[in-house]
């Protein structure tokens, strides 16, 4: 494993711990307003200062981590499971099902720029956490399906699969107990990069006003609110910006490290 992988794991661990223990770590009520203390600079009382409504930025960032990770984990799980299933079916059965799925359905989903599709869906469905997750799952599953299909096509030709077939194992047994466990490795990399992508997409949609509506402390919404007063108080934008960048960077480092570890060709370079 390279050094960046360990840096990624460490940052991700801090973000996860911050999200889990947010109620204990938060120094103030996350939505408590104090207009007398608007745009206060970082101090012993307010570590990251306060925002336009006098709310504590540090506490909001901690709770924002919950939203980001919740969206990330849900999107990766749902789109991952769905994509893996569809990809496995396409790769294993081949034939017409594969031609339709990989030749047409995958191409249609890849033909849309991901963020635009999510924006379009949320624009027509309306904003909200559930709809945002649905939109991100709709754009996310194809990545997993494509990788899984490629993997299954490769693994199904291995000798142990032929041996299982010769021993009379059924299709489902071969697929789930022999092929899947040997095909799943690159999907772990995909999931890690998918997590970074989901966190970024959630923040982007919230920034555009199409994600989780205020007063929920989404990092994207915090940046959008801070942007209007940025020239007088840059710190209000700085901290949520750093939080997003570090979280996305951490999952990218993990994904990159895993990819290098799992691919010996890259390791020698």
């Amino acid at each position, binding site marked *: 494993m390279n050094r*960046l992988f360990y840096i990624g794991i460490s940052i991700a661990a801090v973000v996860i711990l911050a999200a889990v223990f947010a109620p204990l770590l938060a120094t103030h009520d996350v939505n408590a307003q104090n207009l007398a203390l608007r745009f206060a600079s970082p101090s012993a009382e307010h570590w990251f200062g306060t925002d336009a409504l006098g709310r504590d930025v540090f506490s909001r960032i901690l709770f924002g981590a919950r939203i980001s990770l919740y969206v990330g984990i849900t999107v990766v799980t749902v789109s991952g499971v769905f994509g893996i299933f569809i990809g496995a079916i396409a790769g294993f059965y081949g034939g017409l099902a594969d031609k339709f799925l990989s*030749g*047409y359905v995958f*191409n*249609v989903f890849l*033909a*849309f*720029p991901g*963020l*635009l599709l999510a*924006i*379009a*869906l949320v*624009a*027509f*469905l*309306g904003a909200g956490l559930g709809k945002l997750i649905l939109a991100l799952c709709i754009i996310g599953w194809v990545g997993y399906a494509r990788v899984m299909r490629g993997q299954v096509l490769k693994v199904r030709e291995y000798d142990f699969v032929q041996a299982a077939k010769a021993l009379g194992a059924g299709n489902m047994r071969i697929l789930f107990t022999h092929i899947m466990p040997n095909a799943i490795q690159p999907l772990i990399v995909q999931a890690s990069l998918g997590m*970074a992508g989901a966190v*970024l997409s959630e*923040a*982007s949609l919230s*920034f*555009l*006003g*199409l994600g989780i509506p205020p007063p929920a402390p989404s990092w*994207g919404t915090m*940046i*959008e609110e801070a*942007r209007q007063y*940025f*020239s007088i108080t*840059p710190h209000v*934008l700085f901290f949520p*910006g750093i939080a*997003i*960048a570090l979280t*996305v*960077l951490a999952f*990218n*480092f993990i994904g*990159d490290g895993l990819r290098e570890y799992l691919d010996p060709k890259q390791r020698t*370079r």
Partner: protein
Amino acid sequence: MKYKFLNFLRQLALILLVIWTVVSLVTLLIELVPGSPATTILGETATAEQIANFNQKHGLDRPAFFFSYDSETGVKWNGAENRYLDYWTGLLRGDLGRSFRTDRPVLDMILERYPATIKLAFAAMLVAVGIAIPLGVLAGTNKNKLIDNASSFIALLGISLPTFVIGPFLVYIFAVKLGWFSVGGSYYPEDIILPAVTLGAALSAILTRMVRSSVIEELGEDYVRTARAKGLSERKVVYKHVLKNGLIPVVTVLGLQLGVLLAGAIITEKIFSWQGLGLLLLEDGIAKRDYRLVQGCVLVISVTYIIANSLTDLVYGWLDPRIRLS
């Protein structure tokens, strides 16, 4: 020759099929709107007559598709009198309908703003290439040294830093503090610099990594050894031979990224109030719930994206004969 022609036809058919599906999906997206567009636009206080007039004017009184389903009557065949076909008929005549809010033709509104977005996307590409080629070559020719690790780190940082974080910081430093540029808008020629750098940052990071690995791969080839044996300077070897061959995959990524840039410009346009298609979609379309305009914008961006990607595939095949043969 026959095989090539058939392959081209197959690719073309797939592109047309994908465009047809994308257009159909966008056309039908309007059915997802909770309630009806008429009440959303006219407000809860609108009279039944006003709503009926609105629906008739925009064709919303006609059934959505060839067939509809009702729990009481079951599946009902609507024939050719439907909105889906209306939209397609209009589209084939170059008519994207009229804006729900302003009543102007949607196509006119889009054509007014699209050049600004295309200009921004190309400027961002220029910035990205300008950063990526020297940095990627530097990293590739100094593999695993400090300079390589530093450029890898900068590249990953560029990928991870969202546009909406980079953008405001650039504004703060170069517009608010140094006063070199204006804070937003697209009035003067130099106004494009900050948005282009913001939009091009992530792409430059991706390209730097690509140029780096291409250079490393090409440096191991026999022709490089021959060139060195002939006594060519390292500079000539790298810039005349290695880069020429190493840039082929970069060209592909560049083509694929043009579509991403056009779509990604939405956020950059919002940050810098850049009067492009993205801002039209966000401010006039989504914020004012002008669904017809949203449909038009999404459609134009998607189709441009598909065409840019397909052209890239074709150019790539032309550049590298191995791809054509495979």
